[in-house]
């Protein structure tokens, strides 16, 4: 399954955007030195094969949630839902009072400790896991 994610945006420690001018977010400020930047990254360096450590995740926005310019990410199997939520929140520059939910099957929120690898095995198809994310209103 040697498929190449279409938009392989580097998760930059500094501002390397590969010429992709992000409209919604500027990556250099969105991701300040994530501790395990390799955990969510483009899949190009990933060896294809049965023992892929990373799975392809397609992120889709629900409701009024901002759409991520890069929707397809290679994510380590052991990354938890909570880790992914934190990543998306930083990427979208959500404020602390905004909550982000992630759903599989567009309707079910896996618990925060759930690993994306497990979700991929249960709900993945066509070599990827589709996750919907939704932001709830900031508290006023």
């Amino acid at each position, binding site marked *: 399954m040697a498929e190449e994610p279409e938009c392989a945006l580097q998760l930059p420690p500094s501002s390397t955007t590969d010429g992709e001018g992000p409209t919604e977010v500027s990556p250099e400020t969105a991701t300040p030195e994530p501790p395990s930047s390799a955990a969510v990254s483009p899949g190009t360096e990933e060896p294809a094969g049965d023992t892929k450590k990373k799975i392809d995740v397609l992120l889709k926005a629900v409701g009024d949630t901002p759409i991520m310019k890069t929707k397809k990410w290679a994510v380590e199997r052991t990354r938890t839902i909570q880790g992914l939520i934190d990543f998306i929140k930083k990427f979208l520059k959500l404020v602390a009072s905004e909550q982000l939910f992630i759903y599989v099957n567009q309707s079910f929120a896996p618990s925060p400790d759930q690993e994306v690898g497990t979700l991929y095995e249960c709900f993945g198809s066509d070599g990827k896991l589709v996750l919907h994310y939704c932001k*709830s209103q900031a508290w006023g």
Partner: protein
Amino acid sequence: MEEDEFFGEKTFQHCCAEFIRHSQQIGDGWEWRTLKDCSEGYMCKTHFQIKPETLMSHSGTSACVQTCLPIEEALELPLDDSEVTETTTGSQVIKYEYHVLYSCSYQVPVLYFRASFLDGRPLALKDIWEGIHECYKTRLLQEPWDTITQQEHPILGQPFFVLHPCKTDEFMTPVLKNSQKINRSVNYITSWLSVVGPVVGLNLPLSYARAASEDE
């Protein structure tokens, strides 16, 4: 359009029935209860959890860092048979009860819960709080999308903790609208409980997600 935004008691009962049907298939323990001579009912589940002290300290560190410490690792250490009954080592068995009721005033489901030791002593909210995943503590403190209060159970008349339902609509509506758009039915209870449950230590097995989509 109004049909989808209005979650009436009949829909509530229907969704609970579907939910319980799947629960029975996987042995997840949810039941429906009614009072005699009363059409009102609620869904409930009891589960027991071993709460060793070491677990708390692990959950404190793992959450805010992009976690590499799966909770399962922390659980492996204390689950010795000897430690289950040995209260002196700090391990205790806690009985959790979760009740799902319908709120007529908010027209949404509400999660009631309580916890007690095996000898019947109830846990205070602060003790339950300690068992909550660290990421939710931060959220609940910073982002009161659902606050926890103590209230009388509307049917049993006993004190329970409640996740306040005033914001349920806010996070449910986008999900429902989205499903509507793609012509797919959603079990409100499954979706709702998958979101609020983990906040108070109730994690739904993933198979509920598949069951819900099979109901299309």
